[in-house]
């Protein structure tokens, strides 16, 4: 009896190890345990009043949800691009700068210190979406029609994007003084949870519905796995690749809006700097193959919050600035190696062997 239940647990673990969500979940649990043991106050959530006079929640978990949300939104688009085009878009940071700059330009109407909004925020945002999707489509066309490797194709925008962003505003640094604009990256009066988290939740719901009620998943995976076969089954691989880049463009516009709202301004050269690397990492942490094909959206999104969790933990323990990238790199290497299929296979076999031993 004892034996049987044990081997049952063994089987459970070996099955668990094979699951795609095993690695991100383990990482999450380890990070949480580490923080819990080192300082339980890490998880303390309190209510404070912000400068606008609203009662809001505060605490590290809230901060993680707040800042991790941008990454989570980008991870959605990056997962699709990775799956369809077997490569990654490295121009995401630059594209965020473009979208953010464009939104600011629309809002301030060319007057860098305009105190009134030139158009409703929603209009500026929708126009920003169009612009970001156009730039996404540009990347997509390079990849789909000209068959340029995604990393190389997006290198163009990666290099030029921030200059384009600056050009939208004649190199000025527009400041939005309207209070409602800051709600997007902060708090809506009367709501104690950061708005970016709500936006991320909306994005997740939208993509879940899209995946459920359209064939986006099947088409994207088919194109990512075998383009020839997909074409002979009536799909248009080029269109699907471009679609994935356009969806990423939409995600970029949302993140651009949040980013510029956080400080009501923009710095072209550093806004969303290196965020593409974190987004790609989120996809990898989610156990998704970076060479395309099948994908798991939920684990990618988890990956995004884990990266933020890690960043926040490193801040919390005041890791010296010089060592910060090194710490992050070590953790990242560990996580990515652990999520590599070969390593997962190895662990799974190990579990099985242990199970056999137990039985003997």
């Amino acid at each position: 009896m004892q034996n049987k239940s044990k081997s049952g647990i063994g089987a459970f673990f070996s099955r668990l190890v094979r699951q795609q969500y095993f690695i991100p979940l383990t990482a999450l649990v380890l990070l949480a345990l580490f923080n819990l043991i080192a300082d339980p106050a890490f998880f303390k959530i309190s209510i404070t009043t912000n400068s606008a006079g609203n009662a809001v929640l505060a605490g590290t978990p809230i901060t993680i949800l707040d800042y991790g949300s941008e990454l989570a939104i980008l991870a959605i688009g990056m997962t699709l691009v990775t799956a369809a085009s077997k490569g990654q878009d490295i121009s995401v940071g630059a594209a965020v700068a473009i979208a953010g700059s464009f939104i600011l330009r629309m809002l301030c109407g060319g007057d860098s210190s305009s105190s009134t909004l030139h158009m409703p925020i929603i209009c500026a945002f929708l126009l920003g979406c169009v612009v970001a999707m156009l730039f996404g489509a540009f990347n997509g066309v390079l990849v789909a029609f000209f068959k340029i490797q995604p990393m190389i194709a997006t290198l163009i925008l990666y290099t030029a994007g921030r200059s384009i962003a600056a050009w939208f505003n004649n190199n000025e640094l527009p400041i939005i003084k309207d209070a409602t604009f800051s709600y997007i990256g902060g708090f809506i009066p009367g709501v104690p949870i950061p708005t970016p988290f709500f936006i991320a939740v909306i994005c997740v719901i939208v993509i879940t519905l899209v995946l459920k009620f359209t064939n986006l998943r099947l088409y994207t995976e088919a194109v990512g796995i075998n383009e020839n076969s997909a074409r002979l089954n009536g799909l248009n691989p080029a269109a699907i690749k471009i679609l994935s880049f356009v969806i990423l463009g939409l995600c970029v516009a949302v993140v651009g809006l949040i980013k510029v709202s956080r400080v009501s301004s923009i710095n072209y050269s550093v806004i969303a700097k290196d965020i593409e690397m974190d987004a790609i990492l989120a996809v990898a942490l989610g156990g998704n193959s970076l060479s395309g094909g099948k994908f798991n959206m939920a684990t990618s999104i988890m990956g995004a919050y884990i990266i933020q969790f890690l960043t926040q933990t490193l801040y919390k323990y005041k890791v010296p600035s010089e060592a910060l990238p090194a710490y992050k790199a070590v953790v990242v290497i560990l996580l990515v190696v652990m999520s590599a299929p070969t390593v997962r296979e190895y662990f799974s076999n190990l579990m099985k062997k242990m199970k056999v031993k137990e039985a003997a």
Partner: protein
Amino acid sequence: MLRCALLLLTENQEVNEGVSENVVLKMRNIHKRFPGVYALQGVDLTLRKGEIHALMGENGAGKSTLIKVLTGVYTKDEGEISIDDQVVAIHSPQQAQNAGISTVYQEITLCPNLSVAENMYIGRTAGIGQNWKKVNADAEKILQSLDIPAKATQQLSSCSIAVQQMVAIARAVDMDCKVLILDEPTSSLDEQEVAKLFKLMRDLKARGVGIIFVTHFLDQVYEVCDRITVMRDGQLVGEYVIEDLPRVQLVSKMLGKELDDMGDISSEYQTYEHKEGEAPVFEAEGLASDSGIKPFDFHINKGEVNGFTGLLGSGRSECVRAIFGADRVTRGSVKMNGKPVKISKPIDAMRHGIAYLPEDRKVDGIVGDLSVRDNLILAAQVLKGFLKPFSKAEANKFADEYIKLLSIKTASADTPIKSLSGGNQQKVIVARWLLAHPEYLILDEPTRGIDVGTKTDIQKLVLKLASEGMSITFISSELDEMLRTCSRLVVMRDLHVVGELTGADMNQSKVMSTIAGGEKKNAE
């Protein structure tokens, strides 16, 4: 357990007595389990020096797994492998190579953009320094000694597939292999090329190399092999000397039942009669594509089975690819049921009720990582539209239905298609197109590289579908198959349509002579 293995061992030794000093490779009691599949259940294999040994079995019999265990791709769970009576441990392809085991796969695994000599010596140099002059000279010597029509400095991709395959063999031979495994080497070769390959194999045999030959072509087995090991469902059926095993018996041993199915088909000659006045289901005039195919006319009637025949590279596949819009159509007009239509890409053809099972299953057919279910519903789903996915229940229903209908062997509908055997993968692709309910079904080499049982199944299915009113174009390298299934044959040579045969003309010699040429003049 141990006693049992010993017992088996002694038994086998008894069987092989008298020739054991000649034995180069012995595999004993090999076991291999995969999740859900017990792929090898105590299989033995004995290979002697200077012998060509056929490894036969239906797809899923465990041939590939056994070969992969032998070449170190998989690690065996149990059992023993010995070479020259020395037990060897093989855990990686490198170890297999060191032990003297070389493999040439169906798909060329060389680098097409390197030279022949570079391909022969790649990965074998001791250091960075390399005397290329010497390497080229050495390679040239080996190529000459094996009578391979290639130059050492020639780029590999400029050689024909057959020569590439021979280069792969030359590479293996030069590594002093004792055991050479040829895994389906002939499936993409035409007859002349096969003959050349066989000559090479006999040369190697004379040099004392033990060759394991995996193939689906029975003729070839009887032409070149000395012994046969037959496997079925992961178990050893037996080892036979070729003279003692007539074809019918071999087939029945592979299938595990007395076989009269083949007879069934051959008796079932085509009795298709065209109804006067009915417009053809599909009709093409002066169709040509960027693949280089010359403009051709073609039509197919309701319920008819016809086929394109010709040597490899004669343009059979290119014709049907043009019909389906798989290659870019450059000229010509197309009618469906008498009405002009425009087909410029696969989705157009699909919308007009045409389905196409491509020649190369791996490259154009399966979507490897996707499940059997997703592969099965793919075409129907695309036809239905982006915004209208099948519900989970619907998809499951379709999957279960066709898995049962075509008796597809898979652990579940969720299993990735790439882990199925070739024949079962092919059945899934056939099912995919049946689910799309086409009016006109094109099957390009549906029986290539799959086992005898599935071949028969597919031929039967073709006839059954035609009797239900579907129009089918059937292409196969095996003329027998086409003669049995088709009521009309379009004969191709050098990208031209050179003739059309029906009724009494549909016999082997007529087809051959049409393909060979000269016949055209007589016909005119």
